[in-house]
């Protein structure tokens, strides 16, 4: 297997006594070494659940996963807990949205980095400390020695996020998962972190899966974009293709609804209604109830993704004419 990540027909369900929530409903993708995939979607689209599935971080007692899910040749769905533990942090690492809740408040940044390095690489405490210093340097945290002795609350939001990236990179992962890592940051800090992630990704040759709701962020960092809606990829393709020639009505709606320069005085195009309830999904295209070009055929079956694997393709039976331009 050559792909770093290989996902086929992945479904994730959350089962409780009263209901079953179908969070991810058949996701297929491959990710190569050194490639950046952005999963773009609104709240409840299943983007974070997909990301967490790659490290099996969804709550174990309630989650039911089916399909194929390989990361670095390892089957994530059938792996034992022990195997998963050694994968987490070593070959796959995650950066979360809110560093204040993801970092442990009672340990210093240095202790948290050293712990990871010692656990996975079995090195001495002194070597782990040296590695921690290198890592803070790598993520451009100034006065590294002093910052290693700091507790998370003593750092600013931007430095905390850099520290979390340092921890994620501590064992040189092949795959970095990032769940809205810049959403909680101020604009001037967000762009710093995005540029840092882009540089690190290139220097270290990591594969990155980056989840965001912000098209602008995706445009800054992605090689490929997958747009997610109601637990399925409704459109995927190279970043330029998706941003300039969106095929799916949902993607087009998102592009129209994203406020950017030169829209002053114009009416924003909106997507009417709200996303479907994942406990009770419609049988046909999940976007049909909100879609301007939906008809009876859309309600019959879930449309497939047209086109070849890896090409720019969309899950819509009425691809609007603009897509051809």
């Amino acid at each position, binding site marked *: 297997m050559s792909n770093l990540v290989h996902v086929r027909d992945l479904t994730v369900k959350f089962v409780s006594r009263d209901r079953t929530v179908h969070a991810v409903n058949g996701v297929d993708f491959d990710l190569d070494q050194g490639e950046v995939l952005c999963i773009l979607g*609104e*709240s409840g689209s299943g983007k974070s659940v997909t990301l967490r599935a790659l490290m099996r971080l969804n709550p174990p007692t309630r989650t039911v996963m089916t399909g194929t899910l390989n990361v670095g040749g390892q089957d994530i769905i059938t792996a034992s807990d022990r195997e998963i533990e050694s994968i987490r942090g070593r070959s796959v690492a995650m950066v979360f949205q809110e560093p204040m809740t993801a970092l442990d408040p009672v340990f210093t940044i240095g202790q948290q980095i050293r712990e990871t390095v010692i656990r996975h690489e079995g090195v001495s405490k002194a070597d782990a400390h040296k590695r921690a210093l290198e890592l803070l340097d790598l993520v451009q945290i100034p006065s590294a020695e002093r910052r290693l002795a700091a507790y998370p609350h003593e750092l*600013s*939001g*931007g*430095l905390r996020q850099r520290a979390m990236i340092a921890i994620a990179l501590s064992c040189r992962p092949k795959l970095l998962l990032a769940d809205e890592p810049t959403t909680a940051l*101020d*604009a*001037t*800090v*967000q*762009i*710093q972190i*995005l*540029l840092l992630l882009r540089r690190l990704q290139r220097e270290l040759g990591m594969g990155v899966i980056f989840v965001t*709701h*912000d*098209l*602008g*962020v995706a*445009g*800054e960092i*992605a090689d490929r974009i997958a747009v997610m809606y109601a637990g399925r990829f409704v459109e995927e393709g190279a*970043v*330029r293709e998706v*941003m300039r020639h969106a095929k799916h009505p949902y993607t087009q*709606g*998102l592009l*129209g*609804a*994203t*406020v*950017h*320069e030169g*829209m*002053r005085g114009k*009416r*924003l*195009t*909106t*997507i*009417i209604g*709200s996303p479907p309830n994942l406990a009770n999904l419609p049988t046909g295209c999940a976007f049909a109830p909100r879609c301007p070009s939906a008809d009876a055929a859309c309600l019959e079956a879930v449309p497939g993704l047209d086109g070849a694997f890896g090409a720019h393709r969309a899950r819509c039976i009425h691809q609007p004419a603009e897509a051809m331009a």
Partner: protein
Amino acid sequence: MTLAPIPDRGGPAQPLLLVKDLSKHFGKSGSVVRAVDGVSFAIRKGETLGIVGESGCGKSTTSRLIMGLIDPTAGEVIFDGEHVGPGGLSVAEFRRQVQMVFQDSYASLNPRLTISESIGFAPRVHGLSREATNARVRDLLAAVGLEPDQFAQRYPHELSGGQRQRVNIARALALRPRLIILDEPVSALDKSVEAQVLNLLVDLKAEFGLSYLFISHDLNVVQYISDRVLVMYLGRVAEIGPVDDLYAHPSHPYTRALLASRPSMDPDHRRTTPPLTGDPPNPVNVPSGCRFHPRCAQVMPKCSAAEPEMVKINADHQAACFLAETVPA
């Protein structure tokens, strides 16, 4: 009592709201947080003034000071020519004329009141009859795009985030105010819902003849909705001006950096260098002189020694920077 719209007093040229040297310092001597430090601006009748800035710049504290939710350390608020506070416009009367919408749509609604009770609460307090209140609630729900029969008797948890924010807007309109302060009203919403709410705000402004104070960290949203924009940095006004002028010709280095921090929306012309390094400083220890000087690319020796005055760039555009120059008309 009918709670009719309040008539205009000072005429169109008199600012609807004047804020003069407003300051709020939190904490006791030693570690004082100067959240807002001598901020002055005006909101004209019928305009939308946008306030942008990063976390800790004092934009939300400013809105709370104007509403009287916290007491200012110094400064004055003047509404349509009348001083707000003892000896002037009473707080009750002021709050009829100025209403607020917050970021967190769920936390700002009482979970044990139905939507109808929440929206009708203030009109009832202000003496409107039960029948008249019910009729007004239905009108308001319709005005914000929620079917009254379907939503009036629901509770906040039964609504989506976008629907709840519409309810908050309806509640803010219930007393027929003239000014609405919107503190990050769309920041918690998904993009498709954000666009719906922005369109609604534009419609309501025209329909009810409102003025807005629109606070946001999102420069694109502020550009879309505002007539004039005020940029705040560490409790001070860095720059203020008409939206097109300020976005096209930013005069303060901080405004330039903020604008350059926006994603490019063009995968072929991505940002290559961050315009600023580091985080916004902690307002406990504000830098001497110009508060922006430690992060400024064009810093000069005098920037750390003295605080720059507001420089008039043209009739309506001002910036607090030694390098800002008046553009001859």
